[in-house]
């Protein structure tokens, strides 16, 4: 539980990672953040600091954000060493200044991982996540070809578990929290979401193989079962999905190794 600061206005010192571009060296720079209201969000505090920096002729701190309600997955600050900051089950944008106290020094960095290079200051490049999805994170269903929705009943428990996995917001906190920069929680959430549903079965093997192989190729590390990922996850996605994906991966690997290749059934019609 995060301490709740209810005092009126207060001040902190920010120790922020500044980096002008992907190829430039970065460093920590300290800035004061004064007269903060405890009900401000962490990002609103950065807005205020940025306007002050601009007024002093200093370039504002670049940081990624968009929806500011914890669902788009854009925000990506490591605050005092923890991806998304001190709260449990929240994104950076849902971190409020009431979690900090007068006189605190707050260290703010981008999510760190080899597969997430820094673009500028606190902004990182997470295109690797999209590449994993493009490799297999889908059920092929062209518009217009779908059967009647209720033709396929799905047990509530399966649907609920699929939804637990599907909640992933693709922020990358799991990768940033992992000492190996593994993306297993992210990938397993998508593999499990689709693999738990009957309509996901046709591509189940292809999907897990393609996504895991792409993940490995993009420079993410391996999982060593320490579960920092699920602890940092703003949606508290369970690491049980990693075990589920590992089972799927092993089964799919065996099946693909021993399965007879299908006869070539393509070719023109009459």
């Amino acid at each position, binding site marked *: 539980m995060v301490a709740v600061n209810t005092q009126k206005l207060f001040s902190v010192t920010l120790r922020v990672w500044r980096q002008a571009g992907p190829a430039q060296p970065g460093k920590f720079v300290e800035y004061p953040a004064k007269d903060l209201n405890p009900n401000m969000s962490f990002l609103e505090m950065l807005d*205020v600091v940025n*306007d002050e920096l601009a007024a002093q002729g200093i370039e504002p701190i670049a940081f990624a954000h968009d929806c*500011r*309600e914890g669902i788009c997955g854009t925000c990506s600050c490591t605050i005092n060493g923890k991806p998304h900051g001190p709260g449990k089950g929240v994104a950076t944008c849902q971190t409020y200044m009431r979690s900090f106290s007068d006189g605190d020094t707050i260290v703010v960095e981008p999510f760190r991982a080899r597969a997430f290079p820094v673009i500028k200051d606190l902004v990182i*490049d997470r295109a690797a996540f999209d590449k994993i999805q493009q490799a297999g994170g889908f059920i092929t269903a062209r*518009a217009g070809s779908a059967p009647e929705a209720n033709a396929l009943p799905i047990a509530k428990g399966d649907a609920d578990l699929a939804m637990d996995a599907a*909640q992933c917001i693709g922020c990358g906190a799991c990768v940033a929290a992992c000492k190996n920069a593994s993306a297993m929680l992210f990938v397993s959430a998508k593999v499990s979401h689709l693999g738990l549903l009957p309509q996901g079965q046709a591509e189940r093997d292809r999907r897990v193989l393609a996504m895991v192989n792409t993940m490995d190729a993009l420079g993410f590390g391996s999982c060593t079962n320490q579960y920092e990922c699920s602890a940092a996850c703003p949606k508290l996605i369970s690491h049980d999905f990693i075990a589920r994906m590992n089972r799927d991966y092993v089964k799919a690997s065996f099946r693909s190794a021993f399965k007879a290749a299908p006869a070539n059934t393509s070719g023109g019609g009459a």
Partner: protein
Amino acid sequence: MATLNSKIPTGPLAEKWRKHKTEIKLVNPANKRKYEVIVVGAGLAGASAASSLADLGYKVKCFVFHDSPRRAHSIAAQGGINAAKNYQNDGDSVHRLFYDTLKGGDYRAREANVHRLAEVSVNIIDQCVAQGVPFAREYGGLLANRSFGGAQVSRTFYARGQTGQQLLLGAYSALSRTVGAGAVDLHTNSEMLDLVVVNGQAKGVIIRNLVTGVISRHSADAVILATGGYGNVFNLSTYARGSNTTAIWRAYKRGACMANPCYTQIHPTCIPVSGDYQSKLTLMSESLRNDGRIWAPKKSGDARTAADIPESDRDYFLERLYPSFGNLAPRDIASRAAKRVCDEGRGVGTTGLGVYLDFADAIGRLGEPAVRERYGNLFDIYHEITAENAYKAPMRIYPAVHYTMGGLWVDYNLMSNIPGLFVLGEANFSDHGANRLGASALMQGLADGYFVIPYTVGDYLAGQKSGSRPSTDGAEFKQAEDNVRGLSNRLLATKGKQPVSYFHKKLGKIIWDHCGMSRTKAGLESALQKIPALREEFNATVNVPGSAETLNQSLEKAGRVADFIELGELMCRDALTREESCGGHFREEHQEADGECKRDDQNFAHVAAWEYQGDSKSPLRNTEPLNYEFTKMSVRNYK
């Protein structure tokens, strides 16, 4: 004077779309790959359009300003998506969904468009389930539904309080599949800054890469804008901070008409404003009104806590005023009722701008675990923001800007008055009239992308010679690129004292005060004085640090706010000219004795489509009459 031909097909209402699909032109499969289509935006409408067109065989280029298409703000929609499946056996039908939507929009939408939307709603649910969207289900494994405002049937499909997220991830997965297959060329971190019109037809866009600052030209056979709504003109709204009007505004300045810009939706149940540092307002889903009861103290200035106010001193004002719809009255009506209560001094919380949304009855009836199962994530969000426990004390809520019904004018084919420019989803004006019902935005975005544009874009392309795409070396491309560079350079060169946020806040306050929940002639006239002055001040004193050659968030914001200032002026002009009240557009001069909207069907049963005439001239107000062939325009009654 723009030509506004709605191209509504002839014939009976329920036959129009079917008939139209069989009559419009097709592009044969081998020729489709010769046509290139640009899609700007990858929310529900853009992602579904891009993947569907790629599946058909067109070459598709998709541009998004986010770092990933999965970040589009469709992701934040909470409550659900409507569809006329009638799974609840409660009397729903395509006709009833059509009628509810048309009535909900206060008879200011086109009949034919709304009917088509209701027709394809059922296909959307099938499509989403096939993609693996994990909708809520009953124990028997069949799909569950809940109720939403403005309807007396349960037709809303949902995935906890994250329906928009799940639908967007479905559309994103389809887009990812087509990107992976090489059928869509996806450009992230890419913002459209101008539309290129060649020989009167939309043939390309100018893009700025937000990471590198590189400006590039792209030509195509058709351009589709699916760039969302413009509610951030108010600064404080439930929109994402990045949501903006730039793509559609710059298309407007290239000749596309902007229709009904004053139709904005103020959602009744949002977490109230707490301070002037605030950047964003957060919605509490309309679905909460299924079980939550909205009330305020009967006495003005009642300072007791909610728990200390006995039943006899509470006013459940929606239940009192609208007994047949109660807490599920449509959004515009519920918002105005809350505003009136607060204007009478009966508001709650430190600012007095709030009413209660109370779950005590539901918790008593269903138990806390059942309420948690239905709405747990919403209660969690409320707790994060306010540090209050809504299981123990009622939520405080107040209306906030949530959606814009206005947008670029489009015909039945979703094509604007610039041939070749199509506009989908919230960016167009087409289906919601003067007020959108809950759970209909997701429906419209996906209807447009999966089931309308795949047919109608072909009708346009079939008339274009394949391989006739203009070269990006042409004069029109050069002029558009120069325009974009000129705008950026002017912003960077001003080097004034005021941050962009100063202007955005000031603009937001002007629009909220004068073009918000309630509007007057005098107020709008004063806004039309204040906004040009604000624009002058912006041009003279804005401070945009940094350069154009790198990631520069100040520059991005400055360009967007400059467009919002111009759009805000047009909104006020539109609201001033529309001398009636309808849906979300409430003019105090035009109200019934009981405070309800007083429409003027004699003079205003039309779409107002504004046409740009140059920066120094007033825009031209074109009209498209709304001819109701099948429905009687009646007084909306939810009592």
